[in-house]
C-alpha cells in the first residue's frame, strides 16, 4: 500500500506573529517558516506504518509557493520516499487544497491519505474532511492511534482511535481512507544529517493546480485582519488569603 501525506509550510509555532498595520494581513516577510506540526506527526505515522510492513511507499505532497520545497525536503529527510509540489503563489483555501490533493490521489492511488487535523496558521480544521468527502472515502479524524491489519480490525480497514470532546472514540474505517492526525498520535523523529543530505537527491515532482483542473481563486473575501483586543496584566497578590479575598470581594467570582 502507498501512503500519501499532505504537508503545509506555515509560520513556525514559536513565532509571535504581528498583524500588518494596514489591516491587510499578517506580517510574513522574514519570519521563520516550518512544517505544520500536525504534518510532522502525519509523516511520522506514515513512516512507522511503512517500517511495520503495512505500507511500501510514502509520498508527500504540498500545495504552496516554490519555498514549500524546503518543507517537502524536510519530510524526505525524515524518511518519505518521494515528493510532489503543486506550485502556486495563491493563498489556497482548504476546499481547493482538497480538490488538488484529490487529483494527486487519482494519479497515485494511495491506500491511505494522512492529513494534519489543523494548520496552525489558518486553524481551519477542514482539509482532511473535505478531501475524504470529495473522494467518497471514509474519514478517521483527530486520530491518536491508527492500527491496520493487526488482527483486531478486519482486512482492508483501519482501526482509528479519535480524540473527541468527551474522551476517546474508536471506529473502523474502510480503506482507502483519509486519517487526520492529533497531537498524541506519536512523537515525530528528527531528521539526521546524513538523511538531510540524502533527501536532496530524492525525487520531487513539480505540478500546478491547473494540471488537476483546479481553480484556486479564493471564494472567501478577507475584509480585514486585526489585532485581538489585548488583555492587560493585572496585579500580583502576596498570599492565598489575599487572592481568595480579591476573588470574593473585588471580582465577585467566588
Amino acid at each position, binding site marked *: 500500500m502507498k501512503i500519501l501525506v499532505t504537508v503545509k509550510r506555515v509560520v513556525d509555532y514559536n513565532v509571535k506573529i504581528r498583524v500588518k498595520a494596514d489591516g491587510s494581513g499578517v506580517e510574513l516577510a522574514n519570519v521563520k517558516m516550518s512544517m505544520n506540526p500536525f504534518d510532522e506527526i502525519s509523516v511520522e505515522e506514515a513512516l512507522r506504518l511503512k517500517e511495520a510492513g503495512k505500507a511500501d511507499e510514502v509520498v508527500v505532497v504540498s500545495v504552496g509557493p516554490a519555498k514549500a520545497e524546503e518543507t517537502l525536503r524536510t519530510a524526505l529527510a525524515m524518511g518519505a520516499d518521494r515528493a510532489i509540489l503543486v506550485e502556486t503563489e495563491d493563498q489556497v483555501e*482548504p476546499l481547493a487544497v482538497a480538490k488538488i490533493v484529490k487529483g494527486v490521489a487519482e494519479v497515485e492511488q494511495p491506500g491511505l491519505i494522512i492529513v494534519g487535523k489543523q494548520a496552525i496558521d489558518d486553524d481551519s*480544521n477542514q482539509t482532511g474532511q473535505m478531501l475524504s468527502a470529495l473522494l467518497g472515502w471514509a474519514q478517521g479524524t483527530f486520530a491518536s492511534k491508527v492500527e491496520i491489519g493487526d488482527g483486531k480490525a478486519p482486512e482492508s480497514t483501519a482501526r482509528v482511535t479519535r480524540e473527541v470532546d468527551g474522551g476517546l472514540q474508536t471506529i473502523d474505517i474502510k480503506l482507502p481512507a483519509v486519517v487526520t492526525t492529533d497531537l498524541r498520535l506519536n512523537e515525530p523523529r528528527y531528521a539526521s544529517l546524513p538523511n538531510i543530505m540524502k533527501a536532496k537527491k530524492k525525487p520531487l515532482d513539480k505540478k500546478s493546480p491547473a494540471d488537476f483542473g483546479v481553480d484556486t481563486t479564493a471564494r472567501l473575501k478577507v475584509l480585514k485582519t486585526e489585532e485581538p483586543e489585548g488583555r492587560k496584566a493585572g496585579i*500580583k497578590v502576596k498570599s492565598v488569603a489575599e487572592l*481568595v479575598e*480579591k476573588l470574593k470581594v473585588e*471580582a465577585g467570582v*467566588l
Partner: protein
Amino acid sequence: MAILLLADHDGSHLSDQTAKTLTAATKIGGDVHVLVAGAGAKAAADQAAKLSGVAKVLVAEDTSLANNLAEPLAALIVSLAGSYDTILAAATSVGKNVLPRVAALLDVVQVSEITEVVSSDTFKRPIYAGNAIQTVQTSEAKKVITVRTASFASASEGGSASVETIAAVANPGLSTFVADALSSSDRPELTSAKIIISGGRALGSAEKFKEVILPVADKLGAAVGASRAAVDAGYAPNDWQVGQTGKVVAPDLYIACGISGAIQHLAGMKDSKVIVAINKDEEAPIFQVADYGLVADLFEALPEMERAS
C-alpha cells in the same frame, strides 16, 4: 431562506453548545430549524423545541446515526440542504468532523469557528492561535459555518417549536463504531463551566494532579483543564486540554496552576472574564494575561486555597 442548525447532544441531553450556537444563528437571521440526529434523539429534540428562537425541530432517528459517524450524518445534512441557505454547527468534535464534509459535498467553502456575526454574510474568526482576527465575507450559495461557542451566550428557554420526524438516508457504510472511552465525572463540563482550574507540566504526575488540583476543583464546583504538556505526559486525559488545538473556554474564572502561558495555551483561555495564575516563576508569560497573579509553589498554595475558599 432558513438556517439549519445541527444539535449537539448525547442521546438524552441537549448540550449547552446548541443554545449558544442558536444565539449565533439568530444574529445571522432567518427561521432556525434544529436537526437532532441519533439512535434515540427524541428527548434532546423536545429540549431543543423549548429554546427560544427555534422555528422547528427535525428529528432523525436511525441506528446509523448513533455515534455521530461523519459519513451518514453528512449524507443526512446534505439531503436536507436544498431548503436552507445556511448550515451551522458548534465547533465541537462532532461539528468539526462533519461540517467540512458537508461543505465539500455541496462544493462550498466553510467558515470555521466564527466568534462574531458582523452581518448575515460577514463574520469574525481568529487565526494564528487567536493572535489575529480576520473579518471574512462569504458569497457562497450556501453558508457552512462552525461556531466557537465560548464567544456566544446561551439562548434562553421559552420556545415551543413543533417537532417533525424525518427519515434517515442510506448509510454510505464506510465506517463502523467500535467503542467509546468517555470520561465520566460529576464535575461541570469544561465548555460550559463558570469556573475552571487547570494544571500544567509542573504537577509532575497523574497522582499529584489528582491530589492537588481535584480537591480545589470540587471545593469551587469547578471543571478541570490542563495544558498540552500535562496531557502529553499522561497527567490528565486528552479531553481536558485547553488551547489552540484543544478546547476553547471563556469561564467567569480561570485558574492556571503551574502553566507557563505559551501562546497555544492562551489561545484557549484568554477570553475568560477573570484569570488567576499561580506560578513559582514571576517571569512566566501567563502573568501578562492574569488579573491576579500569585508567585508561589502550587503544592503549597493549592491546599491552602482549598482550606480558604
